């Protein structure tokens, strides 16, 4: 099973399982904690078969206590293990908020203790989950120095970033988009690879407008780019991949090239990462901007349940197309 990396197409969720499997096989310090991840294989089946393969002390079913088991993971990490914690849904990370922001994030700064911890959080909407099973909680954590935050959009990035997160000596929040789990596939390299934390990726190169985004929205941006290319508008799609620390270099280079920017995310508009990037650009790239910096993001509401509401809530390809057209004539 360590050779799960056959040259065949794997889904985004498979890529996550592979990364866990390979890292656990490679490094016996790596272990997993979470609700129902053992015999059941996790709510989304990411760890199916792991209990059998790695035993119950490396695939630990926990009591229903996010603060408790995140705290425990912090302790184990400080002792030199490499815990990977699963939130059953990203939404429940609010229950562990204090441990993440006050303990994990600050320990190294305060007294020098490294906390090599990964928290996997299946996030995002489009799955009819309603207010408590669709959240994008990443916005809460930009603001806590000491945390790294990643959010892959492809199987390759999902696998590479998870491996990098596990090998990182710091607490890393790993936001995996559950809408993408079984919807996208890719052939992955057979050999071990990582995607370095802190590096954005140009998912489509273009000259007219930079769409800066991450997670499931990357695919919307690519769709919009295809449509717009027929109308002679050439989008560059910048996939952040890492939200903290931001890859300013890649972002700025793209914006210097295009001079026009759309910030696209699924997280609520106010206080999303779009705000931060906009502010960075207004500070550091002001002179090269040729138009307003657009943000395309959901309104400031919880994620509603009913289909027409959720559709209204989520950014759409047409929003990007409309935004790009507006910018193009600027």
């Amino acid at each position, binding site marked *: 099973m360590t050779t799960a990396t056959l040259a065949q197409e794997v889904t985004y969720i498979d890529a996550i399982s592979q990364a866990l499997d390979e890292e656990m096989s490679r490094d016996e310090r790596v272990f997993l904690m979470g609700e129902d991840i053992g015999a*059941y294989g996790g709510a989304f089946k990411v760890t199916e078969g792991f209990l059998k393969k790695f035993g119950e002390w490396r695939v630990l079913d926990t009591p*229903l206590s996010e603060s408790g088991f995140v705290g425990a993971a912090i302790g184990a990490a400080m002792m030199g293990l490499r815990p990977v914690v699963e939130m059953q849904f990203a939404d429940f990370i609010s229950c562990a908020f204090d441990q993440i922001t006050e303990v994990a994030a600050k320990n190294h700064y305060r007294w020098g203790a490294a906390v090599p911890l990964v928290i996997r959080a299946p996030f995002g909407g489009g799955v009819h989950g309603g207010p408590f099973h669709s959240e994008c909680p990443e916005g809460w954590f930009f603001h806590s120095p000491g945390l790294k935050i990643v959010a892959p959009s492809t199987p390759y990035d999902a696998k590479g970033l998870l491996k990098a997160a596990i090998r990182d000596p710091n607490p890393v929040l790993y936001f995996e988009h559950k809408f993408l789990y079984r919807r996208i596939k890719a052939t992955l390299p057979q050999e071990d690879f990582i995607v370095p934390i802190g590096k954005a990726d140009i998912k489509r190169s273009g000259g007219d407008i930079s769409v800066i985004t991450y997670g499931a929205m990357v695919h919307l941006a690519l769709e919009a780019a295809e449509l717009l290319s027929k109308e002679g508008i050439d989008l560059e799609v910048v996939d952040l991949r890492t939200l903290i620390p931001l890859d300013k270099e890649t972002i700025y280079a793209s914006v210097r090239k295009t001079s026009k920017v759309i910030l696209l995310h699924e997280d609520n508009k106010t206080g999303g990462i779009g705000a931060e990037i906009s502010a960075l650009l207004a500070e550091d790239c002001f002179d090269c901007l040729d138009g307003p910096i657009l943000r395309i993001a959901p309104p400031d509401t*919880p994620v509603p*349940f*009913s289909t027409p509401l959720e559709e209204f809530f989520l950014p759409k390809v047409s929003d990007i197309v409309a935004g790009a057209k507006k910018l193009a004539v600027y």
Partner: protein
Amino acid sequence: MDQAVVAKDIKRSDLLEMYYYLRLTRSLEDRITALYRQGRIVGGVYTSHGMEAIAVGYASALNPDDVIAPFHRDMGAFLVRGFTPGEVIAQYLGKQGGPTKGKDGNVHMGDLKRGMIGFVSHLADNMPVAAGAALAFKIRKESRVAFAGTGDGGTSRGDFHEAMNLASVRKLPVVFFCTNNQYAYSTPLRYQMAITDVVERAKAYGMPGEIVDGNDVADVYLACRRAIAKARAGEGPTFLEFKTMRMHGHSEHDAAKYVPRELLNAWQCKDPIICAEQLLSRLGYGDESYFHEVLERTKKEVDIGMEFAEQSPLPEGRETLVGVFATDDEVSP
């Protein structure tokens, strides 16, 4: 439950009404499960199948102006409080006719006018909230009680602890319960806690506790009535452990292969509806034909509800933007 005690302590009409609500819960949830299987309900469906006696029993033991913060398998409480099958199905289908008008799904509904606090996914979060409702009653010297609970899994959360402690220190008029159905999703009790009776948890708060047969609606009702009366009398909170078994998967997508078949079989014959029917028969309150009639009646009500829900429109997309903030007139009096 001893039939003499029941005959003495529970009014015949009350018991018959509880039986009706057991049936209505079952009929409604069976329909919801069917809808789920047809792909008409998106999102999770968590039923109270085999556990209906708990919510029906406690809701029946409360006064109408008492407040309930239900657990996620307490459909019966909604029904007792007057939520119609139509509203409930509309809720599951995301229709405007549901209590949340499509804003939230499944059992995540509430209505303060009917004394139902909306369930929050984050388990046990509503336990401090219920303690606070009880605090309001105490501050205002009202003779009202709050009733709130969570699952065996939910008792592991910090909010359970903080709520139990706070309520006990201030002797608040609240009754807390745990529906101990042996599993939390796939996690068996032994991985959840190092005790076999959840009621042990109450000792940490100096709170009286009681184990209740969660499959016996009469037992549930009487135990709740005692605890509620105590709370109302200013004697503080009680913790009730309802022993039962989750007979379906965690949600309807879950085949629950991790539950041993024998365990399910053993509990099958303790089905709360069968138990209630046996009790009613023994008391001479009802017979097969009566039970059949109630079954048909509840099915009919669910059919009518289904029609209502079908006809209820979906919300318009821009309704998304409505309701983030409350207006002055929406505050409770």
